[in-house]
């Protein structure tokens, strides 16, 4: 086990919120076709409120802090927020479309010793990228900004969301990432709109196209290992937990709401009304999330994939029960291994049902290093 994994496990066991994802705004200068956010400002936290929240997070033991949005640079006080975070010695990561990053901003980010900047790039073809963002010349501006950041020696990761309109472009984006000397991640996750509108899910790539992704060694490492049939669970496995959501990780919205994860829309409290640690330690919802063990799962506890599935409790919650299956992850497990899941078998299916418009997001694939 690596030192980082050991620390993660220690935080998990102690119930310390090691990592927090904070969206500082939902406003954005792009209008991406797949975006699930309402971009109007319904009363974002002020600079002082965010600084106070950061003070509380530092006191609670948070080490890894991700700022995202919306577009973070839509906030005029964003650098003031990052400065405060770095003064509190957080490891800071930023997710952005980068179109507002010029030489001066890149220099400032380096001075502040930001760990990583993750930037959305949808295609290596400008016309495809710009059609997705609905912002003319956004590809050109984003790539130019990546070069500014690299000139400053900053670590950059390109995040490539995969959907129907760019499904054939991921190899091109990988090549672009290698040319720019940055890391690359692929993410086939398309999430329903915050208002419940599921029309954007029509952009999801069909499950039958997943095997091509799962058999790409540049994305998954060892294909044999990644696609191996599931092993039977041990008693210890069944005592295990799904993920770090609510255990050592949580999400904070621009309005101060605290959730177990960015993909787990279960409100647990609001830092405008309560102290963060009171929510983290005493919220009944947070306690319920962290109480769920594999053996408690209504369908998945009897599934052969239970130890290797990336079942997301947040997506399961969106489907109806945080103890239930997450159909998108069932689909992923099936297409990864060829072995039907318990959720499919109980519905009498030998392969996932293809339903557009009411299925939930797919999976996330871990970042990989692009060869130098």
């Amino acid at each position, binding site marked *: 086990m690596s030192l980082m994994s050991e620390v993660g496990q220690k935080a998990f066991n102690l119930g310390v919120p090691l990592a927090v994802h904070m969206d500082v705004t939902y406003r954005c200068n792009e209008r991406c076709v797949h975006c699930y956010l309402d971009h109007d400002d319904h009363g974002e936290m002020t600079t002082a409120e965010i600084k106070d929240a950061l003070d509380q997070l530092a006191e609670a033991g948070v080490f890894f802090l991700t700022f995202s949005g919306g577009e973070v640079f839509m906030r005029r006080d964003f650098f003031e927020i990052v400065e405060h975070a770095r003064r509190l010695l957080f490891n800071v990561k930023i997710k952005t479309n980068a179109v507002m990053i010029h030489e001066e901003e890149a220099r400032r980010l380096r001075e502040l*010793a930001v760990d990583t900047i993750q930037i959305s790039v949808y295609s290596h073809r400008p016309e495809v990228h710009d059609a997705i963002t609905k912002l003319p010349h956004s590809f050109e501006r984003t790539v130019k900004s990546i070069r500014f950041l690299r000139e400053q020696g900053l670590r950059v990761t390109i995040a490539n969301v995969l959907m129907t309109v760019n499904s054939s472009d991921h190899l091109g984006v990988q090549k672009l990432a290698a040319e720019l000397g940055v890391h690359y991640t692929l993410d086939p996750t398309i999430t329903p709109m915050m208002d419940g509108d599921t029309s954007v899910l029509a952009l999801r790539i069909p499950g039958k196209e997943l095997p091509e992704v799962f058999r790409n060694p540049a994305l998954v490492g060892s294909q044999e290992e990644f696609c191996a049939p599931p092993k039977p669970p041990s008693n210890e496995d069944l005592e295990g937990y799904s993920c770090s959501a609510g255990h050592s990780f949580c999400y904070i919205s621009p309005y101060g709401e605290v959730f177990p994860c960015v993909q787990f829309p279960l409100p647990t409290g609001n830092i405008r009304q309560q102290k963060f640690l009171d929510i983290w330690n005493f919220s009944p919802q947070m306690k319920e999330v962290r109480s769920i063990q594999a053996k408690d799962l209504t369908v998945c506890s009897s599934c052969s994939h239970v130890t290797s599935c990336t079942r997301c409790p947040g997506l399961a919650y969106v489907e109806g029960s945080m103890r239930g299956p997450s159909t998108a992850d069932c689909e992923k497990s099936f297409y990864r291994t060829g072995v039907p899941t318990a959720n499919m078998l109980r519905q009498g299916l030998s392969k996932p049902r293809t339903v557009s418009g009411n299925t939930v997001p797919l999976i996330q694939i871990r970042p990989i290093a692009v060869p130098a």
Partner: protein
Amino acid sequence: MPENCIYIARSSAIAARALAGEMMVMNSADSTFFTLNEVATAIFQAADGHTPLREIVRNRICEQFDVDPEQAQADAEQFVAELSGHGILIVSDQPLPSEAP
């Protein structure tokens, strides 16, 4: 200047947080990640740039941890050299300015 009169300050490029008595430290420049034990954490926290290492060892280590002063000084110098090599600490024979971001 007395022998071994060195000053240490934390680099502005680091992230750090205590977890159950140990200090997690990460250098953003290369993502090297360390955990420091209780004694190393005490030295790290006292690295303010203007307190000589010998004074840190005498006041923060020997008093709190009941260790031999010479051995503690030698161990502290080795620890400081190692973290300095990874860009976590800055070492000088002169007092250093604060390295806060």
